[in-house]
């Protein structure tokens, strides 16, 4: 049995990457003979920090503009309380592992903040901390490997009596068990999939609500490569503001679940038997299905992510379940184990990440000798995470609109890659019931200097969604001191979203509209940052003299960075400042919520 030394691993993870490292560490520590508690930062009962934690390990990524991931924010709110004494955690030894990308200005800010605050609250030293940089030649894995050995050394020093011998040949005892009532009647769920998904909303679970699809239209032309959906959900007593988001809870395609079952035929006789989950149950954001309908099939359809790219933690589990009695089996087991090895991360990357191979495809490929026990399912597979989308409509009690780009692309694999959520959205028909949740962003479009300041909105592609909400709301309430929309897309008649709406507002002088088209031969300003620069006198006047708010929204990558550089350049030129002064000016805009950026 692994030794209990009061070790707690908490993670803050937006995309699942930090969670994967935390799970990796958790498993590896167990192979070293050390037991640990693993959960997200928000989910950990904070009192246990006092009563059960002697060693605290935090793994956390940074999202957006130096922000904490959603599942870390509640924890942060607690530790930021001023009234906490500076020796609250003086019984804890701490180390942290941050995940970030140094090409972003607020590199690893989340873990920096957490670490600094926990030191203020008295945490002691366990080992060096790490700020992994995805841009470095070693990648995050290089940092992890070095950090883990420092951590093991730190623990060894403190626990000289423990052996710390690494043994990964034995399967660890299950922490979460799926129990199937093999002798009970089948529960047929396959035909009622959409309705069953809605049973996640219940009296106890007030986070999600039930809505009805009012419309689900494609708003790019049919011959355009990308399908963008304008999804309208009807519900009641909704309350939201511009900038808020909607969480959607996608389900798997039943045919994909069938394919998975084909590759694990020992499950098929029990696929529709009642099922229960015991032990350390993973976090199901958005609630769990009504237990009346819980079967292997419904669990896989609504809760288990089989379409995502497998993580290292997944491979760390499945190689244990390969029958290695044959030569083929032995080879397959060795290979799967290799993929779980931190030193072979390039192998895993080439096999899984680069071609965007799904968990389902991996299992299919190894189906001859891989037999995953039913009771281990939740230890092997990740759980489907909700997807957040910016609201694209004015505050309303009954209707909420979203703009969603359907994710479809090709890699070396023959089968088209599809986003789980957008594939599900495409399958939604008018009047279908779905569950969803509303998430506050608490954006304020106010400035201290002036009431209702002008707002400069910069949003290529589907980034225009929250701008539409903001524009509608501002016009409804006569807050039209100046709305300036910089919108970018490829072609005028293919992917120009809400063109009639914005053009009409512009003609009615309610909106200053600056569209630009990257693939139109006669359009000189291709991208939003070019358009901004060509309007630099206006932008400079609005920002420097009228305290305008700048709101940037769109896909992550070069756009937000280039927009930022362009704005700084404009401040330099129009304000007569030098570069460092302009940088400081922009930073102060950010701190005063005058430069708001939402990217994904």
């Amino acid at each position: 049995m692994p030794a209990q030394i009061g070790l707690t691993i908490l993670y803050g993870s937006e995309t699942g990457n930090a969670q994967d490292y935390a799970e990796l560490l958790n498993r590896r520590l167990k192979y070293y003979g050390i037991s640990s508690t693993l959960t997200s930062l928000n989910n950990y009962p904070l009192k246990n920090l006092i009563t059960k934690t002697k060693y605290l390990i935090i793994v956390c990524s940074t999202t957006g503009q130096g922000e904490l991931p959603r599942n870390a924010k509640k924890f942060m709110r607690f530790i930021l309380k001023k009234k906490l004494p500076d020796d609250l955690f003086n019984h804890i030894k701490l180390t942290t592992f941050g995940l970030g990308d140094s090409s972003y200005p607020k590199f690893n800010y989340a873990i920096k903040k957490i670490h600094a605050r926990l030191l203020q609250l008295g945490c002691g030293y366990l080992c060096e901390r790490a700020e992994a940089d995805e841009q470095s030649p070693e990648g995050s894995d290089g940092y992890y490997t070095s950090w883990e050995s420092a951590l093991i050394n730190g623990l060894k020093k403190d626990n000289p009596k423990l052996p710390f011998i690494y043994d990964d040949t034995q399967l660890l005892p299950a922490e979460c068990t799926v129990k199937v009532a093999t002798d009970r009647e089948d529960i047929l769920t396959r035909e009622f999939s959409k309705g069953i998904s809605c049973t996640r909303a219940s009296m106890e679970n007030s986070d999600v609500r039930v809505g009805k699809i009012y419309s689900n239209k494609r708003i790019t032309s049919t011959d355009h490569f990308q399908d963008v959906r304008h999804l309208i959900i009807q519900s009641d007593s909704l309350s939201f503001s511009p900038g808020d988001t909607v969480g959607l809870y996608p389900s798997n395609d039943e045919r994909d679940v069938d394919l998975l079952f084909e590759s694990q035929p020992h499950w098929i006789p029990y696929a529709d038997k009642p099922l229960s989950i015991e032990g350390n149950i993973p976090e199901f954001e958005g609630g769990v299905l009504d237990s009346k309908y819980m079967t292997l099939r419904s669990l896989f359809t609504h809760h288990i992510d089989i379409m995502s790219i497998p993580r290292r933690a997944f491979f760390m589990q499945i190689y244990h379940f390969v029958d290695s009695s044959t030569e083929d089996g032995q080879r397959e087991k060795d290979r799967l184990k290799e993929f779980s090895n931190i030193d072979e991360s390039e192998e895993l990357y080439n096999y899984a990440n680069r071609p965007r191979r799904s968990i389902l495809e991996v299992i299919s490929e190894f189906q001859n000798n891989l037999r995953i026990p039913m009771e281990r399912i939740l230890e092997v597979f990740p759980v489907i995470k909700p997807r957040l989308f910016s609201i694209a409509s004015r505050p309303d009690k009954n209707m909420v609109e979203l703009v969603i780009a359907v994710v479809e692309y090709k890699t070396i694999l023959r089968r088209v890659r599809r986003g789980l959520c957008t594939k599900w959205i495409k399958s939604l028909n008018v009047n279908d019931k779905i569950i969803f949740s509303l998430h506050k962003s608490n954006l304020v479009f106010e400035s201290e200097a002036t009431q209702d300041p002008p707002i400069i909105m910069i949003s290529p592609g589907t980034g225009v969604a929250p701008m539409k909400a903001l524009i509608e709301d501002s016009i409804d309430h006569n807050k039209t001191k100046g709305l300036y929309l910089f919108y970018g897309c490829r072609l005028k008649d293919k992917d120009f979203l809400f063109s009639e709406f914005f053009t009409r507002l512009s003609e009615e002088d309610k909106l200053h509209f600056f569209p630009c088209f990257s693939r139109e031969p006669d359009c000189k300003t291709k991208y939003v940052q070019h358009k901004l620069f060509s309007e630099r006198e206006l932008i400079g006047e609005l920002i420097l003299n009228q305290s305008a708010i700048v709101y940037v929204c769109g896909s992550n990558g070069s756009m937000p960075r280039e927009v930022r550089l362009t704005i700084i350049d404009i401040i330099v030129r129009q304000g007569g400042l030098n570069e460092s002064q302009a940088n400081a000016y922009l930073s102060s805009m950010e701190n005063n919520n005058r430069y708001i950026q939402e990217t994904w």
Partner: protein
Amino acid sequence: MGNILLLLHPTVVTDEGFVTSIQQDIKQTYKDDEVTQHIIDRVAKGALTLPEKHYNRVVYVNPNEGEHNREIPASTISTIRSCLVDGGVFEGDLPKNQNLDAIMAGFLVNDEGNWITPQSEAVVSIPLKSKKKEGTASKGLPQFKKLSSAQTTVGLTDTSAPNTDDENDDLNLKRKLQETKLTYFSDSEEDLDGADQIIEEDDLISEVKGVDLIVPKKCELPNGKRRRRACKDCTCGLKELEEADEKKQRSLQDSLLGKMAASANEEAMKIEDRLKKSIKFAEEDLAEIDFTVEGKKGGCGSCALGDAFRCDGCPYLGLPPFKPGEAVSIDNFGEDI
């Protein structure tokens, strides 16, 4: 025979009947004891001085609901602490959210929520003299290290307290400290969004020091393999290289598949029929092509095993595993964009 102090909240004394009934209750419970009665405000304001180490029991009567209505000033708690004998009890309508103040004043909090003075002074490891009399903070006040300008709170551990060798005392101290710490963890979610003052998150960044940071193990790939992959917004050209590789791969396969398609004959059709029954694909979902006979040239032996075992640049990369000589099914399932 002991001494009991009945401490009344000012709102109580307006109700004569209530006061009488309390007095009777107390006399019933503690028949042999001497009962004294005061209004708490008079104690709080220093209008009367309580004898030191005199009472065995102080009973607080405050019928008002709500913690803020029951609040007792910290200085008054200290005063009451000093009027109790060792092992004395402060009980009754105590505020539930002031355990910390009680502990700071040298009380222990027992399971029933009563505040108890320790049996002997030696156990009291966080002594705090009455502020009221001294006017200034005494030596016994907990010391705190200055860590940050944003940090305004006082520490819990008193480093100036004398160390005792007694293990029991240590345990006691530890338990008490833990209890004190736990008072900061409110159960209610509301508290998180409530009126608590929050330090500015961004100010923490300036506190961070670059020391003690892990330096990653240098990446050494003995075989000179490509290590890094293209970033999402790659500008260095790696992404283009990768895309070109993929394109090459696909066109190689397409030509391969094109040739083989000609030989996708009756046998393939039969397999398709069989698959249709079990997997129930629509007809157009399947393309059944046998290209293994001619296609398999090299002879590394791993091509048939699937992508997990294929070499870099293997013409089969991206295709499912197959058995040499057997038909390979490329399922087009779901390609109906």
